[in-house]
């Protein structure tokens, strides 16, 4: 059990910095992993976060400077659609939670190689900063589905970004059901700084409804599943996971309908441009 004062002190840091995760988020395996693998004096639940966050400083710098560049590229679009909400940057989850990072490293370490296949490219405490692609990230939350397209197009076509980064893009918005693992829908861009290979940043572009769903799913399903993998039957006896998945589909229908309404409202001028 954690000492109460430790939890209080830790909570202060958590609240103030909005960065560290609550030690209660850690599974027993994670705690054991921290005690055995994180170097002294950071090998405790109250201090491992410092060890992790210190290594993410450069990611945070990349996040700040990329956000500033993205803001510049969004400015003309926001001006163009100034008569309504177009999009906004959400930086509330810029850094991957240290607890998630530990969890991911631990799983990677435990991953068994499959017969006949090469050894998996495992993460450890030394190389995770160059292996994980979502350590630094931010979202661009758009109003309509077509706004997501416009923002994504702007990202693809901005020289300042394409010159600085190798960009990989993955879209889960228009994915066929057979290819879909979860209800998440977004255009995900993984940026790797050309000058510093291994330094990644992730930008997710999505609608407000998609983000709303994701925030709820993260709390209701994702975190539960991370702590207790392969135990869906036990942790979701009420089929909460299935309900959340279905809700994502419903919201996609809503987004699609809103898009149709927008086209009617904004009239031919904007629709012609989109063509």
């Amino acid at each position, binding site marked *: 059990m954690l000492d109460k004062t430790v939890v209080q002190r830790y909570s202060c840091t958590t609240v*103030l*910095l909005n960065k560290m995760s609550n030690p209660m988020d850690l599974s027993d395996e994670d705690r054991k992993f921290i005690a055995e693998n994180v170097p002294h004096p950071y090998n405790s639940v109250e201090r491992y976060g410092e060890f992790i966050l210190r290594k993410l400083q450069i990611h945070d*710098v990349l996040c700040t*400077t990329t*956000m*500033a*560049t993205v803001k510049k590229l969004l400015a003309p679009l926001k001006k163009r659609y100034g008569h309504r909400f177009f999009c906004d940057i959400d930086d509330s989850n810029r850094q991957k939670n240290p607890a998630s990072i530990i969890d991911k490293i631990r799983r990677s370490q435990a991953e068994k190689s499959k017969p006949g296949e090469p050894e998996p490219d495992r993460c450890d405490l030394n190389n995770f900063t160059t292996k994980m692609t979502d350590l630094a990230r931010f979202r661009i939350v758009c109003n309509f589905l077509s706004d997501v397209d416009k923002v994504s197009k702007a990202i693809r076509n901005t020289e300042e970004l394409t010159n*600085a980064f190798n960009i990989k893009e993955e879209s889960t918005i228009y994915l066929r059901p057979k290819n879909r693992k979860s209800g998440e829908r977004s255009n995900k861009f993984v940026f790797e700084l050309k000058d510093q290979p291994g330094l990644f940043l992730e930008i997710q572009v999505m609608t407000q409804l998609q983000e709303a769903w994701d925030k709820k799913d993260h709390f209701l399903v994702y975190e539960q599943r991370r702590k207790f993998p392969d135990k869906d039957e036990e942790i979701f006896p009420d089929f909460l996971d299935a309900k959340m998945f279905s809700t994502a589909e419903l919201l996609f229908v809503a987004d699609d309908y809103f898009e149709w309404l927008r086209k009617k409202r904004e009239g031919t001028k904007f629709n012609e441009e989109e063509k």
Partner: protein
Amino acid sequence: MRLRDENQKTGHLLIFISKEERANNFSFFFPVGGLEEFDSLLKIIEGFEHCFQGFKNGYEFIGNSVADIGRLEEILPEIDKSRMLRFELEEFLTEDSQFIENFAKIIIERQIKKESPIFPSIRPGAMATGSNFYDRNKEPEEIWGRLQKGKNLILRAPRRYGKSSLLNYISENPLTGWRVCHVDLEGGKSSEDFVEYTLKGLIQRQECNVCLPECLSVLEPWKESERNKLGIVRNERKKIRENWQEYAGAMFNHIDSLEDKLLLIFDEVSFLLEDMIGPKVQDKNKVNELMIWFCEARKKAKKISFILSGSEHLPSFLESFGIEGHLDDLETVHLALFESQVAREFVFLVLAGKKIVIRLPEINLMLALMGDPIPYFLQLFLDILSRVCAEKRSLSLEQIEKAYHQELLGPESKRYFETIQLQLERYSRYGERSRAGAESILDELAVNESIGRKDIEVIWQEVTGSKERFEAMRSILQDDFYIKEDKDRVFFTSKLLKDWWERHGLAGKR
């Protein structure tokens, strides 16, 4: 130099959090324009983290990316916004992108000390008080240390070096068990004035009420209006005029009988003595009489300590009139000028407070234009630059130089140099041609890098017709015009005053 861009909202926040009390936090926000600033931002964070090592015991440090600083409260509600300062990256980077550690350290220190206001203000000529009392931390400590050991002191420095501000700081921050009375002797012209001004000083402060003669302390004059205070002093004037030594002796004896110690600070002693010295021999005798009496009084006093503040060359000035200063019992404290690094930090802080971004080459140019960074003139230059920069939004190196020549040395700034005229007028008391002699020396110094010591003596002799008073004038010029002698060469240390004299002094008035 240019006005800071206050519109940029995306940037990086460097946060310092007290380990003891987490609500005690301060931060620096650096707006960022885009990916092109990646290396600069990284350098800044590494630099601040390095500086932070010195404060590690009390604070935690963390960087935080911020999409919109206007919405900071939503992301980091516990950040103390009143202690968040905005800077630009280039304010802490040299031209070749090296981190300027001194600037970072000074601003962290001022934040930790909770200096208020955090940035020194521009107040040319005014007493530097509070956080405007800049970089004189060691001096008060040193002075109190010596006073505690029972020493009496003489604080010596040329004009406008900040003697009065230092003495004011000491009088406002006494050690436990001490009362302090700050006596400004400027305007005094006699021994009687010396006593009267001391009385004036004592009635100003509540804590010094007990030091007054009983007939006055019952009146509690510190409570009274300035007019009434003046009336009380006027009533005592007759007694002082009758026998100033007896009056002062009784006052000092009374103070000696009190429990707490009294520190008597006599500011502008040089002015009093200069004004007392006239062409008549008996005036010199009066100065001698005062100095002998005062020396005896210092030796006799057990509960009173003294600080005399005067020009750098007070002893040699007195000597040139054949006056024995009787100052040997006093330990000398020299108030040095800002070191150039301190002057750079001061410029950075003052302009940062005005929301102006200044780079090192611009600061270096300012200091090169001025010569010695005499606080008063440095403040004048900063005042002008911040005003011009606010008008034009940015100033190039050429424009800074232009502001120096056209604004600082220009006709509009003439009032700031009025004291030079007053100083020159004072010189007439040393002889009919003394002023002309001093002006001729300054003329020569203004148009030459330096001149030989013997040569200025010749100039003096030619203009005044004799060698008399040359030594006195030499001492006065060193204090008033920052003239220095080195290896028998004499020169201006303040390039600003040299330039000013070249432009305004060489007007053929002689």
